[in-house]
């Protein structure tokens, strides 16, 4: 159940587009959080996470997203999600956090 998680970061204007692929679970969630926080600390707090290639996301992944959202907002930035997996969409709805995140059906920026 512990799959691999890979992230690739591309900068477009003042946006950082992070393409995530693989499983976000209790083992890999920390690397997602750390990777995104690095981008914020490097001066780019406006993040778009492309989740189109995420095959699994549980509550650990959700917790990581909330931490990323808080860090982005603390740095006067924002977090947007694209291609949100069904289960994550359900968690965003359940937790009432959905309205705080801009979500798009697919990547708004084509590199």
């Amino acid at each position, binding site marked *: 159940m512990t799959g691999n998680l890979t992230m690739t970061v591309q900068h477009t204007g003042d946006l950082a587009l992070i393409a995530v692929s693989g499983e976000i679970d209790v083992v890999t969630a920390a690397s997602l959080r750390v990777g995104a926080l690095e981008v914020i600390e490097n001066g780019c707090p406006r993040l778009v996470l492309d989740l189109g290639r995420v095959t699994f996301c549980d*509550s650990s992944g959700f*917790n990581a997203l909330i931490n990323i959202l808080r860090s982005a907002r603390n740095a006067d930035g924002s977090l947007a999600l694209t291609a949100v997996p069904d*289960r994550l969409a359900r968690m965003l709805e359940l937790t009432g956090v959905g309205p705080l995140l801009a979500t798009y059906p697919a990547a708004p920026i084509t590199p």
Partner: protein
Amino acid sequence: MAAVRRYDILDTPPDAAFNRVAAMAVRLFDVPAASVTIVDTDRIWFKATYGLDGVTEIGRKPGLCASAVLRAGILVVPDTLDDPAARANPLVTGPTGARFYAGAPITTADGHRLGTVNILDTRPRSITETDAQILADLAAMVMDTLELRLAALRRLRQEQERRKEQEQARAQAERDKLMLAAYAATLQRTLLPPVLPTVPGMELACHYQTASTLDVGGDFYDVFPLGSGRWAFFLGDVCGKGSEAAAVTSLTRYTLREAAQHHHDPKDVLAALNSALLLDPATGSRFCTCVFGTLDPDPRGGYTVAVATGGHPPLFHLQPDGDGHLLVESVLPPGGMLVGALPEAHFASLTLRLALGHSLLLYTDGLTEARRRDGSMLGEHGVAAFLASRTTTAAAVLVEDTVALIASLHQQTSDDIAILALSVPPRPPHAPPAGAPTSRSTDTP
């Protein structure tokens, strides 16, 4: 003598390396007997002999070995009968009948003489300067062997000591681990209600299991009285696991109990918890999901439940469907946000009637995220379908069956799981139950 003790050679079993030196001496010098001796305080001990059957040690009488060991160089006695000191030596007077003796001291690098390498003959004779040098070389060979032996002995002792230290360290680590586990178990008991209270006209049951081997988790629940026949209950899940989550769990529990005394509406209790978690610097980036509710006795029987949720999966309201199974209704007040994550969080509450024969089942996402054999998660629908196939709403049976469902799954769960069930028996009991049946286990996978 300290040097002799250091090499730990006295009274050791015969050793081929030393025997070979004695045998070599016999052949090189064409004599009938040779020996390697070590000098003790009161005796001369023969480590190796050749042609001296039965001689293992002699006294420290002067003349031969005892004199040779006192000299820096080689001692040669061409005819023992001409030497006043050697003449009385047992090797001369005894059955050996030595007439010729030559001995080279075995000398350590720091100048201590431990013993001798000797050659003996039954006839008087003399040796050349070259022969004397060869005898000295044999003594040096013996010394080399002793040094090697000592180095090996030291290594062996160091190894034994190291092993002993390792064993002691391991035993200490084991003791520390047991102590920590006991400490964690004590802490955990402070994080959980030891037993659920007895709520009149209601049956309660719960289950708690942690993914951590220390049995400290981020899930929590409680049921407690508010006075005037009212009760409060809550169940939740702090994000993360282990000791950090447990600290937030503790803060959450005490804040909810306190806030419940000041706010009537469950959503206000969650708002108070949200502020408390955001204000507490130790909480860091941790937040929780939570269900909080109150129970008001209903004159018609059962209770009126007011409940608010904060980012928590729906609870299930169960009642008999009239066909022997259960009707399952998901209860989720709209818009309840995660607790302690964001300052603008808002919460909502709703009320429902827990009539005779009804029950409420609360759980943390460890249950809905438990995975089936094929890797798929149980999910809310899976849990709801399982509950719908039950035949009774009795809290203890529901919890027991749900625990059996978790245990039957192929994959061991990697998350904490808490389950709390509250049920109102179908008919008012003639006598109040002696105590609320509870099922509680702390399985650690």
